[in-house]
C-alpha cells in the first residue's frame, strides 16, 4: 500500500495531522518541500521549533506571548476597567485588528461544551474570577463565539459575574455588513431583531 520511500511517507503523515490538511494537500506540500532548497526547509523547521519553544501563555490573561505578563497586560495606556473575555488567543488578535477595543483581555482557552463534557474547571474561569475580585474591573464584555458552546459559556459567566456588581455585556449578534436581508438565515435575523437599536 505504500508507494513512497519511508522519509516521504513519514513527512506526508506528519503534515496531514495539521488542521485543514487532507492527504492530498499533505502530499503536495511534501513534494514542495522536497523541491525547495535546503536553506528554505531549514528556515521553516527552525521557525516552527523557535515558535514552539519561545511562546507561552501570559500568566495574567492567557494570551500567547514571549514574556509574561504580555504586552497587552503591561500597557498602562489601555483602559484598565474593561475586560473582554474571549475563547482563544486568535480571538484577541481578531479584536485587536479592529482597533476598536482598548481594554484588557482574558482568554478562556476553550468554551463550555455540554456535549463534550467540558465544564468550568477545564477553562481559565477561576483565574478570571480572581482578576475580577480586585474590584478594578467595571465591565466585562463576553466575546464568545455565536455557537452553542459560546452561548453556554456566556450564560454561565453572566450568571456568576453579575452578582459581583460588575456590568456584563456581550457582543451583538446580527447581520453581516453588506449582506442582503433576504439571504440571511432565520436564526441570525431573529437575533438581529432582538438586538435592534434606536437610531
Amino acid at each position, binding site marked *: 500500500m505504500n508507494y513512497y520511500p519511508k522519509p516521504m511517507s513519514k513527512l506526508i503523515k506528519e503534515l496531514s495531522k495539521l*488542521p485543514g490538511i487532507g492527504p492530498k494537500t499533505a502530499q503536495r506540500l511534501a513534494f514542495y518541500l522536497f523541491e525547495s532548497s535546503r536553506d528554505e526547509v531549514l528556515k521553516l523547521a527552525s521557525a516552527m521549533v523557535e515558535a514552539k519553544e519561545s511562546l507561552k501563555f501570559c500568566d495574567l490573561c492567557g494570551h500567547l506571548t514571549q514574556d509574561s505578563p504580555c504586552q497587552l497586560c503591561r500597557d498602562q495606556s489601555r483602559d484598565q476597567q474593561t475586560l473582554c473575555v474571549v475563547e482563544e488567543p486568535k480571538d484577541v488578535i481578531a479584536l485587536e485588528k479592529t482597533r476598536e477595543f482598548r481594554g484588557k483581555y482574558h482568554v478562556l482557552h476553550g468554551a463550555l461544551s455540554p*456535549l463534550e463534557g467540558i*465544564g468550568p474547571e477545564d477553562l481559565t474561569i477561576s483565574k478570571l474570577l480572581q482578576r475580577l475580585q480586585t474590584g478594578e474591573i467595571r465591565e466585562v464584555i463576553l466575546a464568545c463565539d455565536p455557537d452553542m458552546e459560546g452561548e*453556554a459559556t456566556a450564560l454561565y459567566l453572566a450568571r456568576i459575574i453579575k452578582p459581583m456588581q460588575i456590568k456584563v455585556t456581550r457582543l451583538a449578534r446580527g447581520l453581516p455588513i453588506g449582506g442582503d436581508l433576504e439571504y440571511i*438565515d432565520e436564526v*441570525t435575523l431573529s437575533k438581529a431583531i432582538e438586538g435592534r437599536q434606536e437610531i
Partner: protein
Amino acid sequence: MGLYRSEGIILRSRVFGEADKIITIFTKEKGKIEAVARGARRPRSRLVGATQQFTYLKALVFEGKGLDQLSQAEIVRSFAVLRDDLIKMAYASWWSELLDVFLPLEEVNSDVFLFYLAGLLVLEKVQEPALVSRAFELRFLKYLGYEPVLDSCARCGRDSFVSAGFSSEEGGVICQRCYQDKPVKLIPLSGSNLQLLKELYQADLRIVHRWDLDLASEIEIGRLLFAFIEYRADKPFKSLSFLQSLLCWE
C-alpha cells in the same frame, strides 16, 4: 446516490475542516444520519442557522460516494430557547447524547422521532425540567427494550415484595429475600420513589413538571437512572457530567 429529502432534528454538530460542520441528524424517514454541511461555519452561509444544535429542519441531502452532503436546509423550528437557557441546554444535550449513543445509524424509528420532538417542545416551555427528563429517560429505555423492572422483583419475579433497592446488573428492583440470598450492588431507592418511577412511566410528559418533587427525591431517582443508563450504554456520558455540575447535587 442522488438527492433525498428528509426532516429531522440536529443531535450534534461538530467542526470539520476550515469552515465545514459534520452534523448528525435524527430524521423521521431515515433514522440517524450524518452529513457534511459545507461552509456552515461561515457567517454568510445559508446553512448557519439551520445547522445549530437542536434545530428541527427540512433537509435536502446529497448522497455521494463519501459522506452525505447537506445541500439545502430549511428551519421548521429553531428551538432557540434550548440554546438560550443553560439548564435547558444541558438537558437537551443529555437527550441528544442518549439518542446518539443508543440509536444505530440509518435505522428508521419514527416513534422515537415523534417522542423526541414532543419532548423538546415540552422542554422548551417548562421551568423545572427534572421530572420531564426522568419521564423522557424511562420512556426512551422502554423504546430500547431496556425497561427497568419495577412492578416485581427483577430476580425472582414475585410481585408482592419488600424492595431492597435497585440493581443495574439485574435490570430492576430486587426483593429483600433475594438480596439476603445473594447480595448484589444496589442503588438506593425508597418506597415512595419507587412509586414515583412507576407513575412517571404512565404520565403525560406535558404535565409531570407540575408534580411536587423534593430535592432528595430528585437526586435519588436521577442518580438511579443515570447509573442504569450508563451501565446499559457501557460508557460514561459526557453531557451528564456537565448537567450534574450545573445541578449542584453534591
